[in-house]
């Protein structure tokens, strides 16, 4: 059979598939789903493993209050809203003072527009290799920098502001939200840092109510701010802004209730100077009951092992489903050939050789498979747009 005849057979096959568009479409989609599901699943698990492991492996040690190590790691590395016990900031100061490691305290209880507000040391940005591409990093309490995803989602830029979320809608006795001034936006890093708001630890303490500034309603320029007088004391009206902003003037009145070293942090990332310091530090901290020292890479390995067990089970089910789908497709094709018996007889009678008929049928199968593969790989390519740590987030 000549190549020209083969091309004509392929052309006829395409015409046939086009003519029976609905049937062909269903077959292509069935095949595509069977191929795509295990591929996408494998890709997500693989990317999740890579992203999760790499973030954990560059975080040598984590210090927290005694409790669940998984919660501590997920809270401190992925800013997931875990209920973590606290430890005093003094722990961080003492580790820095020892010279054995750099301690990076984290306070993650606040949120702004639904995104986690991470109060930390300015060195955190250097530690994670986060560059401020637009603007500058925070310098005083009340300032913040946004992760790239937060800035893009909310359409915010340096010079704008973002309000922290109130702790609870029914918390009428709670403090006012804090209006944070955005000083910079971080470059995308494809890590959870893209979806967070970073500020100084003191800012987090102010949001949590451990520190405050004094706003004098009598000194506001708004004449509606005061609605009356009660024995010489002004009565503020609803015109007073329902939030606090740490302006440079108010910042000079900032003070904390208690010594800053006694105020709480949820976790402390420890970056030892060298292997010897790491051993000494983990040994010293391991002896103390009031703190818990955790190796994030080991905790993440435990979590991933569980995820992979579920993933392997799911992959098995998907493969079985795929095999069943393939069987159905083959049956449909076999039935289709039987139904096309007259058409194939006609081809034979008008002089088409047997090889042309086989080429025609094979071409149809190859085309269906090719289209299905195309859709499957397109789905695989599209899945890369999903967050790399999606599996971990879904699993937790």
């Amino acid at each position: 059979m000549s190549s020209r005849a083969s091309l004509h057979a392929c052309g006829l096959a395409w015409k046939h598939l086009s003519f029976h568009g609905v049937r062909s479409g269903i077959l292509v989609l069935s095949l595509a789903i069977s191929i795509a599901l295990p591929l996408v699943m494998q890709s997500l698990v693989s990317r999740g493993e890579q992203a999760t492991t790499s973030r954990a492996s560059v975080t040598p040690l984590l210090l927290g209050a005694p409790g669940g190590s998984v919660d501590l790691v997920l809270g401190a590395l992925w800013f997931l809203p875990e209920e973590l016990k606290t430890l005093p900031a003094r722990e961080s100061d003492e580790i820095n003072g020892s010279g054995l490691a750099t301690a990076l305290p984290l306070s993650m209880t606040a949120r702004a527009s639904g995104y986690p507000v991470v109060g930390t040391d300015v060195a955190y940005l250097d530690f994670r290799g986060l560059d401020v591409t637009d603007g500058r990093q925070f310098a005083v309490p009340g300032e913040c920098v946004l992760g790239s995803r937060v800035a893009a989602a909310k359409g915010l830029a340096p010079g704008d502001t973002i309000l922290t979320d109130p702790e609870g809608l029914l918390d009428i006795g709670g403090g006012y939200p804090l209006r944070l001034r955005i000083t910079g936006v971080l470059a995308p890093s494809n890590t959870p840092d893209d979806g967070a708001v970073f500020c100084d630890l003191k800012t987090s303490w102010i949001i949590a109510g451990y520190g405050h500034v004094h706003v004098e309603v009598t000194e506001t320029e708004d004449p509606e701010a005061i609605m009356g007088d009660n024995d010489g004391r002004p009565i503020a009206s609803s015109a007073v802004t329902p939030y606090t902003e740490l302006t440079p003037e108010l910042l000079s009145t900032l003070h904390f209730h208690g010594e800053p070293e006694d105020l709480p942090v949820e976790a402390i990332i420890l970056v030892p100077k060298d292997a010897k310091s790491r051993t000494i530090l983990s040994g010293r901290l391991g002896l103390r009951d009031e703190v818990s020292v955790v190796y994030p890479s080991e905790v993440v390995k435990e979590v991933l092992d569980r995820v992979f067990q579920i993933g392997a089970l799911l992959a098995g089910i998907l493969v079985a489903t795929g095999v069943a789908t393939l069987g159905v497709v083959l049956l449909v094709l076999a039935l289709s050939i039987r139904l096309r018996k007259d058409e194939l007889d006609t081809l034979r009678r008008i002089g088409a050789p047997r090889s042309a008929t086989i080429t025609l049928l094979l071409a149809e199968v190859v085309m269906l498979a090719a289209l299905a593969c195309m859709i499957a790989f397109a789905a695989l390519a599209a899945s890369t747009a999903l967050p790399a740590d999606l599996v971990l987030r879904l699993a937790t």
Partner: protein
Amino acid sequence: MSVIRTPVILSSLLITCMLAACDRSSPSTAMSTQTEPTTPKVFAINFPLQSFATQIGGDLIQVEVPKVDGFSASLYNPSPEEIITIQDANLILLNGADFSPWTGRASLPASKTVITSRSFKKEWLESSHDHGDHDHQHGPEGEGVHSHAHWAAFTWLSPMNAKRQAASVGQALGRLLSADAAVVEQRSKDLQGSFDPLIKQAERISGMTMPTLIASEPQYQYLAKACGVEVLEADWHWNEPAPHAGMDSLRALVEASGAGHILVPSEPSAERSATLKQMNLEAVVIPLLVDPRSGDSATTFVEALGRNLDTLEALGSAQPTG
């Protein structure tokens, strides 16, 4: 021909999709690869710390100080942009004890920041210069009334405190310059040793009978304690025209105490000298040593503190010992 072209186009698309699926860039795991400057930058908040860092670090470091344009470093209040510049230093030497209150409000990297007076925090003195503006209450009934401790800041005027602060600077520089740790350690020991005669001199002064002294500035607390000298406070910031309670309050203090000397941080102007003379007060210049003496970059802090003690000792020597 279109019948033949369609499958070819579809095949090309298939290959493109496969390539796109395979070309998945791995997530960024970049760590900071910031290149360290060849000479580490050390920010020192005042003259004593600048002097210690220079003496210990020498040409191994580049010491930076607050840019104050003629004002005292104690009045330095940097803008956020200046704070960002300070954040970039490899080591930030702060005094602590409420010196430069801005440091308590700035976002400074804790791992690179050393509060040099922390080792003797329990010995910090509460400031006698309290105008009551640190007390306040929350709520109309006074619930939550609280005050915030306000510390006397000029810790370095005591030679013992200064020695401990120098040791703290030496320790921090030893960590920063680990390759030259031996050199740094030796220089640090030498510097600490140079305080020993001053500590003995302060003890000697504390054994003398001193004339009644009035302190213009409320900053001589640590010096007075180290030398066992009782000073009466005039509450007179030397850059202001008169004491907070007015010149009459000083006159009353002189009359009540019979003091003939007033400690001042710098030479009084002719007009001020005349005012003091009218009150039979002799100005005794004891610089606060927050800043290096203008135009004198060669004098070290140890030398300057020694001069202060000499001046004070001279007052004691003039009196008959009891």
